[in-house]
């Protein structure tokens, strides 16, 4: 490169690339399972504390991996009427509900052209193992619209191999826009109350505009509905980690 006085200047080596090796940095990702967070109410916090102790006890025996809605899981439960006395079900997690020991998650799969949804309780003593086969988050918290989507979006191979993944990487978000079957649907997913971002709506503009009539824009400013869980989460995270490391 020519210098300021026209002569070729001294060679400046290019700046060295900065490599952030996340493995060595050891940045821990915090994940607190949503069923640990107590709901807002007038109940005694002692009740939630006792439930958390029981939940931690159960997690020490049967480890429950970190998973979100949209992951593909395989669950083996004890079944007295099956051949091997175990029952293995593979499916995509549609929703996670409940708090405390009654926390549930619903797995959906399409087996031989029949859609099957099974609701499992996380802390059920009959569950022997939960494996995460594929990790990916979706755009929504609740994938119930897969019932009205084309069946190809809910089919997962029962003998799928677990996708390998490094521990420190971020969980990828799948921005898939799902195509739906023709209307009528089980719920009117185009309405703003469900706030779904993962559907490719092929409805005419007039229908989408009409659906916006049911929008409630004042809800996000309602202060009584705010439930700030950050401080509660911090405390519970420390408590749970301390117990689990024992």
């Amino acid at each position: 490169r020519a210098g300021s006085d026209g002569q070729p200047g001294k060679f400046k080596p290019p700046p060295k690339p900065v490599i952030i090796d996340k493995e060595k940095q050891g940045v821990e990702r915090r994940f607190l399972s949503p069923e640990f967070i107590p709901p807002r109410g007038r109940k005694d916090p002692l009740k939630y504390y006792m439930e958390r102790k029981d939940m931690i006890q159960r997690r020490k025996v049967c480890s429950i991996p970190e998973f979100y809605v949209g992951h593909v899981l395989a669950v083996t439960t004890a079944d007295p009427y099956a051949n091997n006395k175990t029952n293995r079900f593979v499916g995509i997690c549609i929703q996670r509900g409940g708090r405390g020991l009654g926390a549930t998650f619903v797995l959906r799969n399409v087996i031989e052209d029949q859609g099957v949804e099974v609701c499992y309780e996380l802390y059920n003593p009959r569950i022997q193992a939960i494996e995460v086969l594929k990790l990916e988050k979706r755009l929504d918290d609740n994938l119930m619209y897969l019932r009205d989507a084309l069946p190809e979006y809910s089919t997962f191979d029962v003998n799928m191999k677990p996708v390998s993944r490094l521990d420190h990487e971020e969980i990828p978000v799948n921005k898939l826009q799902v195509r739906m079957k023709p209307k009528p649907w089980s719920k009117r997913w185009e309405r703003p109350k469900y706030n779904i971002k993962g559907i490719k709506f092929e409805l005419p503009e007039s229908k989408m505009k009409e659906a916006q009539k049911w929008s409630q824009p004042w809800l996000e400013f309602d202060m009584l509905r705010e439930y700030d869980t950050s401080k509660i989460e911090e405390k519970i995270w420390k408590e749970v980690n301390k117990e689990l490391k024992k």
Partner: protein
Amino acid sequence: LKVQDCHVLRYVPKEESGGKTAKLLVGGKNVAPFSKPESAHQIFKEAGVPRKQKISTFNVTDDAIIKPGTPLYAAHFRPGQFVDVTAKTIGKGFQGVMKRWGFKGQPASHGQTKTHRRPGAISTNKASKVYPGKKMPGKMGNVYRTSLGLKVWRINTKHDIIYVNGSVPGHTNCLVKVRDSKLPTCKEHNKNPPFPTFFADGDEKLPEDLFDEEIFQFTEPSVTYT
């Protein structure tokens, strides 16, 4: 069910009390003494105990008398016992006959004029009066009711919690009276309780958690069938 600061307040011998057995007055949760007059504090001063929110009576036999002032703990009950739980039900206010007594009401359409949730006829022609105790609309709830024969599955001695089967009358955080079951089928299960009660300063050292034999404990591995 949490046992919160229970103390025995007074012993009433058989002759003074109206019934067939002696009575023990037991007080519940601790509460500030400022909102009641001095005369109401008499019982608590005699027993040497802070003012309690609720006082209830228990009919006791003579060999089960406890000195006033002793604290009562959750370990008074053991897993496997059966228990009756009494509390005031949730008050629903003035309610109509369909909610209060479960009447069927009338159809919603087919020509019904202004009559969909009414009781209909209240008596016959021959009686020419309404019988006392006729089911009619009125205040529902806020009444003492008992759920009988509840099994005790687990007891936590550190926090004084009794894990009881099924549901119990009353709203969340309400005060509740727990007694040994009076049902004849539960008599054999209720034998060998800590008698007259569990004393914390006694010789017996209980573990933090007491479980029934049949219950699944979270320290055990997952259930498998063979």
